[in-house]
């Protein structure tokens, strides 16, 4: 190694604003993605309890298919199929949301199953209508059970948003990548982007772990 030195603080300083801009997009994608995943996941979980296997069977297959194939390939797939008017970022939100909805549906399922049988029986004893039982008794308890899962998936999704580079959404990793491509210095941007992920995700996951312990 010669004197033009491996690490340049100047470059690091230079790329930082772009990375922070990208971080905003990354967090945006995570938040919107998780909102979609939370709602859609609950709907899937409820649909999975449908009495007929003609609903459950195909749904199960779709969910397994999405869950067991690469998010990256799914992103590009939907991106290429969508009309060009739809912004890539929106496609990113939706695909992240759907992919994680298949995970979240399992969290809800477990959450619903964890509500004690006695709660259902008490609701029957009070002659509550089914819809009311779900809305007022089962779901509030089930959703409480799912909070740590939700937190963990949010952290996980945050770390998977860089996949959006494949559909040219300019999030944090893409910012680093394009800076590197323009200036031929990859060391600073790529190292810093990794550290930024760590700086955000580590405290968040500690927080989630504390929540787990408190809710357990």
């Amino acid at each position, binding site marked *: 190694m010669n004197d033009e030195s491996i690490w340049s603080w100047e470059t690091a300083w230079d790329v930082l604003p772009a990375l922070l801009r990208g971080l905003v997009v990354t967090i945006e994608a995570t938040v919107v993605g998780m909102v979609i995943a939370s709602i859609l996941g609950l709907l899937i979980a409820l649909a999975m309890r449908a009495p007929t296997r003609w609903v459950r069977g195909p749904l199960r297959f779709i969910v397994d298919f999405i869950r067991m*194939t690469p998010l990256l390939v799914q992103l590009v797939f939907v991106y290429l199929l969508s009309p060009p008017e739809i912004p890539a970022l929106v496609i990113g939100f939706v695909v992240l949301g759907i992919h994680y909805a298949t995970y979240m549906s399992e969290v809800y399922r477990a959450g619903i199953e964890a509500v004690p049988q006695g709660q259902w029986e008490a609701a029957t004893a009070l002659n509550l209508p089914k819809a009311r039982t779900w809305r007022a008794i089962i779901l509030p308890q089930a959703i409480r059970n799912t909070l740590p899962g939700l937190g963990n998936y949010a952290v996980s999704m945050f770390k998977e948003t*860089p996949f959006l580079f494949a559909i040219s959404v300019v999030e944090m990793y893409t910012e680093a990548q394009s800076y590197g491509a323009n200036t031929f210095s990859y060391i600073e941007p790529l190292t810093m*982007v990794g550290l930024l992920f760590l700086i955000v995700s580590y405290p968040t996951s500690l927080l989630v772990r504390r929540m787990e312990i408190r809710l357990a």
Partner: protein
Amino acid sequence: MSDDLQLLIDSLPDLGNGVLVTLQMTLGGALLAMVVALVLGFGARTPSLWVRAPSRVVIEFFRGTSLVVQIFWLFYVLPQFGFKMEALAVAIVALGLNYGAYAAEVVRGSIESVPTGQWEAATALNLGWLHKVRRVVFPQAWALMIPQLANLLIQLLKGSALAFYITLHDVYWWTDELQRDTRDTFFSFGCGLIVYFVIAYILTWGMNWLEERAKRRLGRGTRPRLRDVFGLKPGVPSEIARMKGGTA
């Protein structure tokens, strides 16, 4: 459509190679991940702070810095420090370190779930540490680990699609080629996703089979029903695998 099929048939040799590359990454990555997981997992539960603290730091580092960044860092940045690895090696190392860090938590959690009485009985029989781990504790922890490791294996397979961007000709590369040839996105990507799904399915069978075998060894052997082996257990990403580690 018939053109599509013809092009698909023409590309089958490429698909064979693509599957091979994807499997090399997945299984190579999984093997490395397991080694990393065992070292870090045991490291993270030693009483000595000098081993425990570095283990924890490494685990949190590789979990926290995103697989995408790691793989490109190894590919673009590491050579500037004078370490040049082949693209396949880069993929295996990145996948192995990232998922190894997750699996370390699974290993640690499962080892902790083995009752202390088992360690004590092994001490009472005067077995050495390595012997205790190898013959008594690990076989029991293994049965607990497998479902979560199966999840991680699927995650790892999915993550391997990144290798396309570091010049590897894997299943995703084949998909992309097919898309160029056919100009039919739905058909080509549909095929690509199905190939991934089939690989994931086969890997899941394998892991289910391992799990049934491990359980039988512990005498919890209900003869496995076909559903147990061929059914898909819910796949969950790495964050959750850790969450269940302690309790499962």
